[in-house]
Each structure stands twice: as structure tokens, then as C-alpha cells.
């Protein structure tokens, strides 16, 4: 490699799970931030969340807990959107053959999965939670509603955990199935089905639903409770959701390492 343009290029020697990681991460983040994806999503969710919130913020119940209840409920729509957005992340690449093409390069399967997990998690949290939440804080300031920024940030983080639950669930299902049907159907069925099963004693305070929506056992969602400084009545939901995310990630990596392409 001396006279053909590669003279000053040096070979990469990334080993183990890091093999191919920088390139895959660059591509993963690029799919959000170097395309119209980020601003399209940010615009959409700012419109949905902040548009709905504007009606309440400048309405009759401006300083009541309903404002923050609505905020939590609105982020639930984002969680459903995550499942829809992510349904093709793994299955689509398996079906189209791009996963086989990428993994014919010196790239580890762990790096491939990380490049689906991390950039998408950052992308959806930034566009569906962080940007609308920042705009919401501005709305509160303009409307004269006093809010503790640290508590609001912590509450928004809990809403983000709810998004991560659906993101990791959808990624894991992508490794387990070869068609998009179950990959989208199971998260959506779970998202909507929680309304029905939160009435079962013991479940109302531990399902991810309780993070952003009030249930029979928790009359205020975890997000609302944190933002308004009220006692959190469903801390189990935070633990269960975080553990579930961890399990989904472990299963996704385990299965992906055994998938034949």
C-alpha cells in the first residue's frame, strides 16, 4: 500500500467486541443526526407534547398536578412510537441482507448490537423527551409556573426509562423473530394491555405503565410524583423496568451472537 492512495492509511486492529465499533457507532449516530430524522422527530414530538401542554399550561388547571400527569401520559405515546420506529432495526437488516454484509467485515456482533442500541436510545430520548422537556420548561417559565429544574430533569429521566423499556424490548424481539409482525405487535399489545392488568393486585405499582400514568395502586405516576415533589408510591416500577431493560439487552446480545445470517 504505497502508491495507490492507501500509503498513509494504516490498518485497524480493533479486537474482540470492539472490532468495528467506531465505524458502526458513527453510522448509527449518523442515521439520526446526519439525516432529517432528528429534526423530523423533534418537531413531531415537540408539536405533540408541547402543543398539548400549551392548552393546559395556559388553561384553567395551570398550576395543578394535572399538568405533570398529562406530561407523563404524553410521553407514553413516545414509547409506542419507539416500538414502531425500531421494529425494522434488526429484522429489517436480517431480511435485507445488510446485517450479513456488515458482519462480513471485521466487525463483532456485539459492536453491531451496540450500534443499534446506543445511537437509537440517544436519538429517541433526545427527540422525544429531552427537546420537548426543555421546551416545556420554557413554557412553564413563560406561564409563571414554578418548577424545580433538577426534579423536572429526574422526572423526565423516568419517562426516558419508559422509552428505553420499549426500545430494548423491540430490539430483543428483533433478534428472536424473522418478521416484523411480532416485533411490533408484542410491544404494542403490552403497552395497551397494561391498562387492563394494572388492576391485578400487586401489578399496578410495578409495571412500566406506572412510570408515566397513574394506576389504581399509585394515584400519581412516578414521573409526576418526582416533578411535583410528592412521595413516589410506585418505586417498584422503576426497579422492575430497569431490570427488564437489562434482561432484554442481555437476551438480545446472547441471541444475536447465535443468529445465522
Amino acid at each position, binding site marked *: 500500500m504505497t502508491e495507490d492512495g492507501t500509503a498513509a*492509511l494504516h490498518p485497524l486492529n480493533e479486537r474482540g467486541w470492539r472490532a468495528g465499533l467506531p465505524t458502526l457507532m458513527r453510522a448509527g449516530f449518523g*442515521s439520526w443526526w446526519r439525516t432529517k430524522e432528528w429534526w423530523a422527530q423533534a418537531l413531531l414530538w415537540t408539536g405533540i407534547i408541547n402543543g398539548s401542554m400549551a392548552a393546559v399550561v395556559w388553561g384553567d388547571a395551570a398550576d395543578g398536578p394535572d399538568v405533570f400527569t398529562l406530561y407523563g401520559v404524553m410521553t407514553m405515546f413516545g414509547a409506542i412510537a419507539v416500538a414502531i420506529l425500531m421494529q425494522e432495526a434488526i429484522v429489517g437488516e436480517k431480511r435485507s441482507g445488510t446485517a450479513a454484509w456488515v458482519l*462480513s467485515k471485521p466487525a463483532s456482533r456485539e459492536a453491531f448490537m451496540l450500534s443499534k442500541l446506543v445511537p437509537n436510545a440517544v436519538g429517541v430520548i433526545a427527540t422525544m423527551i429531552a427537546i420537548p422537556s426543555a421546551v416545556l420548561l420554557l413554557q412553564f417559565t413563560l406561564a409563571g409556573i414554578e418548577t424545580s429544574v433538577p426534579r423536572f430533569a429526574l422526572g423526565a429521566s423516568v419517562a426516558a426509562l419508559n422509552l428505553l423499556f420499549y426500545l430494548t424490548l423491540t430490539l430483543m424481539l428483533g433478534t428472536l423473530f424473522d418478521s416484523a409482525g411480532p416485533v411490533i405487535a408484542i410491544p404494542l399489545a403490552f403497552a395497551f394491555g397494561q391498562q387492563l392488568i394494572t388492576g391485578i393486585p400487586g401489578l399496578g405499582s410495578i409495571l412500566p405503565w406506572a412510570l408515566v400514568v397513574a394506576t389504581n395502586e399509585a394515584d400519581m405516576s412516578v414521573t409526576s410524583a418526582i416533578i411535583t415533589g410528592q412521595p413516589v408510591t410506585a418505586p417498584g416500577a422503576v426497579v422492575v423496568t430497569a431490570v427488564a431493560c437489562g434482561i432484554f439487552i442481555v437476551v438480545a446480545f446472547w441471541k444475536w451472537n447465535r443468529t445465522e*445470517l
Partner: protein
Amino acid sequence: MDESDLVLRTSALTKSYEGSNAVDSIDLRVPRHSVFGFLGPNGAGKTTTMKMLLGLIRPTSGSGSVFGLDIVRESPEVRRRIGYLPQEPRFYPRMTARETLRFAAGFFFAGPADRLEDRISDMLGLVGLEQKADRPIRMLSGGETQRLGIAQAQIHEPDLLILDEPAAALDPLGRRDVLAILEQFRTKSTVFYSTHILDDVQRVSDMVCILKNGRIIIQGPLHEVLGGGSDSVFTVVVEGDVERAHTALLDELWVSQVTVDGGGSSARMRITVTDAEVAAARLQRVLLADEALIVKEFTRPSATLEQIFVDLVEGGPTDD
């Protein structure tokens, strides 16, 4: 063949799905700097074999090595030295051709951006995609996507190119260009490719392997396969003392069999030899040692690869 000259070898490599062997105990031997044609009807196991070599599919049993590296345990190292073109290449539609090459190059080397861009431009030029380099992939035709596939496979100047049907989606001019690229590549590295286009194999390959129902039915240098194996057959029509010519031929060590059609003073003789080169040089001299004998015809019939492929595939091993 010297084992140290092999860049790729497999031993009883097998892949089974639900008890049925898609690839059945194959022993491949691919010499360095060869253009190795990997042939077989649809479903013969060619793509499965290639994917096992690349670590995309795990073998059920047997083993394989590329450059002495185990295809299962040392797969990332193997892939570092291989360029691969899938059968129906699919790239990220959001990327342009140039971005696709930049992405592919990122797995192999780093360095000054201008050097990298020079390398990418060279590759785009090689496959004639300079004018369409900045169009999204989804706007490329099937043939252009195929050519981009060849460029990305070569971006790191691999020691071994594995190409799955590289000319399948191309028009005749595109095929000609691909064959020219393969021939260029022979001097630098080794090409292992599958194809259905037997004319192409006959034009550029020096080694061939024919697979049927997951099993190898023939493997070797192209000239041997075309010659029906290590033995070659010559045909002569002679006039004179046929019996004496028959005896003289059988006295030669490199003649394994002589059959005679016709009798009297004129006959067609079919001479099977063990060394075609020696036979080509000496056969007529042996016959013309009898000054009274007249050689009216002298031919060395050569079969086309297509004839051999059809004969072998129709008559080779079956599933049962």
C-alpha cells in the same frame, strides 16, 4: 498441490438444517493467486459454504481455514483479509455510493481523510461509478449496485475475494468489465467466486469446483476438468498398417488405452493418454515413425465446461 500454496481449505465441512445436509462434508482446496470458479445448480450449497467461510453461518461439523486461520475461532481475523460480495448486495439506502465505500473502508483502515477519499475515488473509477458517486443507493440500478458491491469488496485490497454470483445482475458489457477486474486481481490475490455463467468460468478461471446437493463432484484445474480429468483423449484417423500403429502406441508409457474403429487399411483411433503435454508433442512422431502410415486427421477434442457441468450434475450423486 503444495499445501502451503493453499489460501483456503476445508475438511469435511458440513452444514445441516433439520437433519438435511445443505453442505455435505466438502474438502475445498483453493490455491494462492487462483481464480477459483465455484459452480453448482441452485440450492447446491455454494452460498452456504461462502457464509460459513465468513463466519455468518456456523458449521455443523468439519473445519475450514483461510490463510491458516480457523474460520470459526478466528473469524474476525479471517474477515480482515477477505473482501466479500453477497449474491444480491444490499446496502443502506440512506447512504450514497461514496458514503457506502467510506463506511466499508472504516472497518479496515484509518488515516488522513484525503488519502481515504483518494482510495474511494479510485474504487469508484474502477467500477465506473464516478458520475453516480453522490447519489443515494436507492437511485442506483441493479447493475450499478452490483458494481458498487465489487468496489466495496476491494476497498482494502484483500488477499482473498469471495464473490457470490458477481456477474449475475450485469449486462454483457458489465460482465466483461467484471471479468477484466477478476483477471487483474489474479496477480495481487486470490478470487473465489460462484457463478451460473459457465462461459465466464471458462474464460477467466484456472480452478473449478462443481457442487451438487452439497457435495463436491469434481474439483481441480480447469484444463483437467475440461479434459475429463487427469487423462486426455486424442483422436487420429490413419491409413496404412493400423495394427502396427496400435502396437506402437501401446508401447508408449504415457498411452493408457487405444480403441480402434473401422478395419482394413483405414481406421479412427481414440487414444487415451496420461500426460497430455507429452502426447501433444510426441503422438504424431510415434505414428509417423512408420513411413508408410498416413495421418489423415489429428484432433484433441475438448469439451465445453457447460457439457461437463450438465453431464456431472445430471449424473452426479443424488440426495438418496
